[in-house]
């Protein structure tokens, strides 16, 4: 991470980032820019540096914020109409921690409305275009954040990942994207989608940059009771022990150096060489040949480095997408019932009765995909269907979690493609929701089980007329719950060659 100093000032870094953002307008990356406030903050940081005062580990680093984070800076839209840009009265914990570490938000990024989608085409503000091919999608739902990093506008961007929304756009745009263990980063102040699978994570240019961001942003938060304590103090491969006895870092306490932030003894990396699992149940014949080749090449490389490849059988995994599209819409239907046109956001101009305030505001304020998911959620939760769908899915979820637990008895990490194909054409899947959902077939199982996954760039497809450099392809490294730091260090080791 390139931080500000006396020569390379925060003001210069922010100005450069904003200028690049403006040059990339045709990609539709940002829903709003934060130019004035960002420059003001940059000057404050430069002043501190000039005086020799302590600045955080992200001093002056411009970043992009996915537009589903609430912040005192600007207004939140979640790329929807119904939030009618919300001047939030609270600031997300992640934003507070990033700013306390010196990072500077330069703009909010486009996304699928309420993070419902895999292409950023479901945005009220129109789609974001792929960084390598303007005729193709950015991926989603955190498409704007992925393209902001891929185009070199910012060194990192925030994202949210409920079923692949960080990893898939990262792989479509050739950057790193990390979904941590569920509960590692506070969800406070982030627009809720599906509370049992939502994770906050990052896009960056390396696994080690993400490691630094995790140090800054992880930790227990009194405002999010699902947050896990001591991200850096407790790094064993099995989440054992009584977590309730441990105290987490408080908001605003930010490590100044990289490495062990909590002062707790470091747990050694599991002994090298690692055992790398591959899942036999994924049918790789249906996968784009470029991704299959990247996968095979990575396995060969890992073998060369002395790692052992272990074959895994995980038969329940093929039901993960069906489980996901029951559990997640159910949580969406519940979480999005709060948008009622009463307390905040959009209220329909013509609503004359209270019922119409609800139904007309919601109908005009949500995108078609929001409506599909809310209605599916209400379907699987409604009487007569609850047992057959929702309860059944939650039982299947138990089987999926158990399969991961068993898999990680046999291996340290699992490696899979992120998605079955590289970025698809704009409009290609918008009329077929199920084919759009199938994009997430290899990313959703992690969210159901709460395990961490890192998308890493793994080469390009052959060049085409619209993608002269080829399209990026990505792979994902999956670890057991709470293996986040080890996973990022392992990824740093195995990707070093490409970075240098």
């Amino acid at each position: 991470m390139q931080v500000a100093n006396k020569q390379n000032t925060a003001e210069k870094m922010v100005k450069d980032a904003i200028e690049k953002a403006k040059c990339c307008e045709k990609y539709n990356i940002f829903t709003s820019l934060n130019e004035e406030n960002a420059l003001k903050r940059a000057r404050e940081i430069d002043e501190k540096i000039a005086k020799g005062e302590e600045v955080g580990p992200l001093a002056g680093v411009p970043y992009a914020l996915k537009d589903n984070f609430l912040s005192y800076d600007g207004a939140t839209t979640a790329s929807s109409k119904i939030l009618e840009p919300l001047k939030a009265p609270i600031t997300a914990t992640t934003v507070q921690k990033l700013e306390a570490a010196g990072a500077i938000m330069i703009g909010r990024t486009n996304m699928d409305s309420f993070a419902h989608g895999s292409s950023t085409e479901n945005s009220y503000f129109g789609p974001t275009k792929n960084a390598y091919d303007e005729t193709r999608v950015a991926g989603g739902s955190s498409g704007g954040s992925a393209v902001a990093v891929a185009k070199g506008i910012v060194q990192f961007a925030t994202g949210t990942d409920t079923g692949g929304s960080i990893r898939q756009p990262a792989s479509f745009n050739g950057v790193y994207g990390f979904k941590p263990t569920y509960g590692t980063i506070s969800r406070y102040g982030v627009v809720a989608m599906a509370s049992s699978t939502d994770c906050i994570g990052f896009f960056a240019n390396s696994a080690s940059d993400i490691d630094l961001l995790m140090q800054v942003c992880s930790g227990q938060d009194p405002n999010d009771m699902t947050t896990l304590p001591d991200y850096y103090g407790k790094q064993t491969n099995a989440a054992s022990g009584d977590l309730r006895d441990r105290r987490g870092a408080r908001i605003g306490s930010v490590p100044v150096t990289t490495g062990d932030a909590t002062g707790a003894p470091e747990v050694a990396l599991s002994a090298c060489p690692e055992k790398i699992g591959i899942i036999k149940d994924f049918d790789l014949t249906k996968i784009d040949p470029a991704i299959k080749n990247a996968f095979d090449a990575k396995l060969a490389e890992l073998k060369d480095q002395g790692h052992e490849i272990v074959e895994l059988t995980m038969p329940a995994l093929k039901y993960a997408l069906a489980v996901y599209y029951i559990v997640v819409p159910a949580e969406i239907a519940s979480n999005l019932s709060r948008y009622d046109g009463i307390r905040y956001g959009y209220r329909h101009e013509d609503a004359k009765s209270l019922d119409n305030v609800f139904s007309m505001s919601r109908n005009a304020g949500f995108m078609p995909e929001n409506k599909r998911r809310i209605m599916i959620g209400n379907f699987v939760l409604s009487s007569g269907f609850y047992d057959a769908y929702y309860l059944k899915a939650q039982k299947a979820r138990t089987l999926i979690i158990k399969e991961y637990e068993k898999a990680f008895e046999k291996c340290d990490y699992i490696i899979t493609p992120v998605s079955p194909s590289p970025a698809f054409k704009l409009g290609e899947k918008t009329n077929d929701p199920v084919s759009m959902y199938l994009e997430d077939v290899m990313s959703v199982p992690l969210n159901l089980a709460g395990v961490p996954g890192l998308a890493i760039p793994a080469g390009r497809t052959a060049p085409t007329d619209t993608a002269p450099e080829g399209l990026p392809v990505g792979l994902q490294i999956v670890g057991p719950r709470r293996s986040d730091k080890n996973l990022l260090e392992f990824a740093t080791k195995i990707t070093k060659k490409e970075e240098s």
Partner: protein
Amino acid sequence: MEKITSTEIDHLAELSNFLLTEEEKASLHGDLDSIIGYISQLNELDTEGIEPTYQTFEMENIWRDDEIKAQEANREALLNLAPEAQENQIKVPKVL
């Protein structure tokens, strides 16, 4: 899997609080049919005797002290967000 009926679509729209146009209903009907068709493949999976999962974070009963603390968002800031407010109250159309 049986297809869902248009009565069920109306019911779901009501549960979801959407005032759908006829065109929207027709399009959502087709979409929901195909989505429900997809998720119904779960019927093949044997889940007999399996406990359902509702969360994955392995913690329970985190207690906080029963203290009143200042909130980040105050009354005025929250009222300012309402589409219509008057005399410290959120205003809505006549209910009765």
